[in-house]
């Protein structure tokens, strides 16, 4: 069966023309599903406009929210407020406490570590173990690799290699996303997979990280968000007096 590709991290501001550029570029590069990061405050107003715009490029658009909580309390509060409103929730972990809470909370889909300093990236054994028990996947933004060079890129590659090895050892799904701040930094799925070889991710694993793994997250959450969903494994099939 032919693979379909997904990019779970496309930045967009629907008030600017950039969103259309991002979406058209993503479609041109071979993606069929993209998750667009929207500000939590504008979710309800922008979702419909986003889906309409994406459909003009034959793209399926999912809504993503990026949380950057300063404390575990702020994280749980945001999750309570936003989980039923979007398909993908990513947490940028800037402290160990937040990283641990995000890894064990089953409402979190993606763990994102943006620091280039290995001491500020908290994906270690404990984090991987918690992520395995929860549902969170490790997200790698490829744009970070493209935006730096020299020693910064060397350090980032070393961190990513270690994190990917840990994720594989603990069966934590890996997601390759573009995370591109401008459309020219978007890359084709196979190019993303080739870049992933720089941090020791095999070709098939890398292709899964831009296809089945991210698509699985969106599918799982869409099922949960559908009105028929009751609990994991339980769906409402029919209702009425004749049941």
């Amino acid at each position, binding site marked *: 069966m032919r693979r379909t590709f997904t990019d779970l991290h496309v930045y967009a501001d629907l008030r600017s023309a950039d969103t259309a550029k991002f979406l058209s570029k993503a479609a041109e*590069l071979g993606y069929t599903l993209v998750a667009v990061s929207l500000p939590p405050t504008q979710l309800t107003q922008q979702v419909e406009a986003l889906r309409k715009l994406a459909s003009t490029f*034959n793209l399926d658009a999912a809504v993503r929210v990026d949380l950057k909580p300063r404390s575990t309390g702020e994280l749980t509060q945001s999750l309570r407020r936003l989980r039923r409103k979007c398909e993908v929730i990513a947490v940028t972990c800037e402290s160990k406490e937040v990283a641990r809470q995000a890894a064990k909370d089953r409402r979190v889909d993606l763990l994102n570590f943006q620091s280039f300093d290995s001491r500020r990236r908290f994906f270690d054994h404990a984090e991987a173990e918690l992520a395995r028990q929860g549902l969170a996947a490790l997200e790698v933004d490829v744009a970070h*690799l*493209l*935006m730096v*060079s020299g020693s910064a890129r060397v350090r980032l590659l070393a961190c990513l290699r270690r994190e990917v090895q840990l994720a594989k050892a603990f069966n934590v799904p890996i997601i390759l996303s573009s995370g591109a701040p*401008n459309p*020219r*930094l*978007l*890359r*084709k799925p*196979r*190019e*993303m997979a*080739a*870049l992933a*070889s*720089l941090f020791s991710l095999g*070709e098939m694993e890398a292709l899964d990280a831009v296809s089945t793994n991210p698509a699985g997250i969106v599918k799982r959450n869409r099922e949960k968000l559908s009105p028929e969903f009751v609990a994991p494994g339980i769906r409402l099939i029919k209702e009425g007096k004749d049941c």
Partner: protein
Amino acid sequence: MRIDADEPPEAKELINTIWEAVTKLYGEHGASLTSMALITYNADAKTAVIRTSLETLNQLRAAIATITAIRNKEAAVHVDAVSGTIKALAQKLQTQNVTQHKA
């Protein structure tokens, strides 16, 4: 390959940029293993065909993906198709174009 840039670079600038990317990522030894050469370049269509050894195809793809500028101007280079012979490549691209056109 397709060059995504506002202005098409000259052939020499393009190949130098690719060599630079390969050398930066894999060093001079790694670059020497690629046996890379520019076969054709169409500045109007912003397309190019390059040759490389099969063993280093993935490395070259990764190096090309790291290109973010040509002549200090924002740009990207994307691999459209890979094939063992120029003839098969032309056929592959033709099929791709027909499919895109139908879509």
